[in-house]
């Protein structure tokens, strides 16, 4: 392991025993002129060091808004956080001072966005932008910062880093730009990385490279990783545990293998079933009927009930909490939960 990056930085803090990040009962709303859109309605999740949590959901599920709330980059107004806690190493970031919070952001928690081109400043060279991280946070000299930038670029395997350090973002391909974003996120060796659809804009063959790199670096630095995505394939490849979101709530949590083998929520089941399978060639695909809900008018009861093949009267009245999922004999399944009144039946469905 190359440790040269560490030289200007105090030694890494001892690994934190509890969850690095603990989101509790988070609510986020947006005030629009058509009413209040409730984007996040009581989300709970936590990530430990070295762990990869995948947050899976469609557009409007609140997966990205949750991440933005964690990073503190929501525009308030129109957004507001009426309730909830975001604990980083035990401290609630929502009740911190502005300065204190700013120090965590970027240094302890870094974020990687989907669109690398618009996240990089087009008029500054990538070397300068990478070096700036060191200059701003550690007061490193210009010359030294450039060396570090080259080193980072080599870390994320950008070929001919030395020659390309003075190139501008548009001179790199999509995959290379996303590597630069990863390099930037890594620059200060954060404890936690939030990656919001990091490979969605990339081609399949490049996707694989970038995901591999991210997973490798995560293991090397023993970071926590929150991977926000809608892609069931990407999740299956890298996640340890999964939180499935729908209409601003977590509807199912499970370790990755269990989720794919035995989903306990009809929405998760529907998503898995609608993936085209070989033996279905020439047949109609399973499709979840209906449309994702409008956040201004989330259906009463379980938000999924108008689309759910299992919905009963109770689903239209009561909001299901995240029930712990157990085996038939009552043995608890670690880390599993389902916000469905009929999780037991769903679990046995196949």
């Amino acid at each position, binding site marked *: 392991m190359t440790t040269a990056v560490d030289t200007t930085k105090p030694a890494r803090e001892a690994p934190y025993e509890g969850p690095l990040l603990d989101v509790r009962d988070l609510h986020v709303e947006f005030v629009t002129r058509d009413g209040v859109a409730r984007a996040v309605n009581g989300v709970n999740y936590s990530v430990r060091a070295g762990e990869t949590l995948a947050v899976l959901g469609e557009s409007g599920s609140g997966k990205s808004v949750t991440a933005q709330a964690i990073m503190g980059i929501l525009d308030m107004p129109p957004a507001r956080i009426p309730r909830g806690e975001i604990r980083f190493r035990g401290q609630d970031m929502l009740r911190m001072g502005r300065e204190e919070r700013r120090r965590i952001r970027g240094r302890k928690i870094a974020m990687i966005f989907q669109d690398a081109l618009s996240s990089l400043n087009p008029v500054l060279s990538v070397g300068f932008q990478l070096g700036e991280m060191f200059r701003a946070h550690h007061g490193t000299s210009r010359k030294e910062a450039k060396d570090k930038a080259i080193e980072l670029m080599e870390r994320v395997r950008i070929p*001919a880093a030395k020659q390309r350090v003075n190139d501008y973002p548009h001179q790199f391909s999509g995959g290379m730009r996303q590597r630069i974003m990863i390099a930037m996120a890594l620059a200060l060796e954060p404890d936690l990385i939030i990656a919001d659809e990091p490979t969605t804009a990339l081609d399949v*063959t490049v996707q*694989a490279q970038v995901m591999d790199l991210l997973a490798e670096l995560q293991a090397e630095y023993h970071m926590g990783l929150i991977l926000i995505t809608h892609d*069931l394939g990407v999740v299956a490849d890298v996640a340890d545990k999964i939180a499935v979101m729908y209409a601003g709530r977590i509807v199912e949590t499970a370790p990755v293998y269990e989720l*794919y083998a035995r989903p306990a929520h009809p929405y998760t089941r529907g998503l898995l079933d609608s993936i085209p399978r070989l033996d279905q060639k020439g047949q109609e695909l399973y499709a979840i009927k209906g449309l994702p809900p409008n956040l201004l008018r989330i259906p009463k009861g379980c938000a999924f009930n108008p689309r759910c093949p299992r919905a009963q009267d109770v689903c239209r009245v009561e909001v299901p909490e995240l029930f712990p999922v157990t085996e038939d004999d009552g043995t608890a399944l670690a880390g599993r939960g389902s916000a469905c009144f009929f999780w037991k039946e769903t679990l046995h469905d196949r």
Partner: protein
Amino acid sequence: MTANGASALGAVPEEVAFAQEVPRGEPILEVLDLVKHFPLTQGIVFKKQVGAVKAVDGVSFDLMKGETLGIVGESGCGKSTLAKVLMNLEPATGGSVRYKGEEISRLSGAGLKAVRRNIQMVFQDPYTSLNPRMTVGDIIGEPFEIHPEVSPKGDRRKAVQDLLDVVGLNPEYINRYPHQFSGGQRQRIGIARGLALKPEVIICDEPVSALDVSVQAQVINLLEQLQGEFNLSYMFIAHDLSIVRHISDRVGVMYLGRMVEIGSDAEIYDHATHPYTQALLSAVPVPDPTARESRDRIVLTGDVPSPANPPSGCRFRTRCWKAQERCAVEVPLLAAPSWLDGPARHESACHFAAEREVGQSAAEREVGQSAAERENGQNGQGGTGPG
């Protein structure tokens, strides 16, 4: 809803009608050596051509009546440009496109208008492909205004409502604006517009990639159902390989402006012989965590070279682990390799076409990769990657 396209065709003047029926399984669209170059020029008043982006560079294939031909490839491979040229939205630089045996790539005026009736398109982004200032009725009814012979004036409202019904939308929504619909519903509106003229060929350019996962399956089902109902031929351009496999009868793989492999879905997915196809297939994330360990993924190094300056010989050679000197000199032809048998013997543009034995070539690839890496490093110094 009348499904019979032939009856309406009777109203068209003889000389521009493509009236003869093509039997199922016969080619309806024949593309031969199609070329589309975008010139790169310098200067404003006195333009000087300094090069060309070779977006499509000699592509040949047939689209059969009633079939779905999937076209896959990564961004910059030319698949969207191919669609635009087939739609006559961009003039072809060279080669020929025949629709029912007639050359259409150099048509204009009435002839072009007649072709447009028969070849329609469904766009990728349902948010930008519908005019926000027009109602749904105006959008779906516009084809009738442009081609008044298809539907007499008095029947148009009814025709539009029928189309809405066919794509699974409430006919009462006729006076609404596009922004009042969700992405999936908008894509249905786009499909209804494409169907209005009762075309025989529909080119779908990434029709579901902008949609939510739970809605994609609905739209795919709709497309399949319409194909059966109206006897349509689809050219289905997408980057999602599992969806392409599901919907396609045949699949063509493109790389850097060329078709590198084409065959039936089983031939491509289970017996791929071109290294690029193999890499592409192996890179697709499989929604099954248990496959994590057992996968043998070919991770390609480097980026797709710029289409303005493609490599000599085989265009994939800079990233290929099988590349030899011959690949830099000799352009491989898209043909069934004589040395292969069975399903592996389908059109593949590789000098060393062979099925991949999983796990076989790890060491071999290692060697090839480092060679490719060296090459790529040199490319990298050249400066700009593809935009």
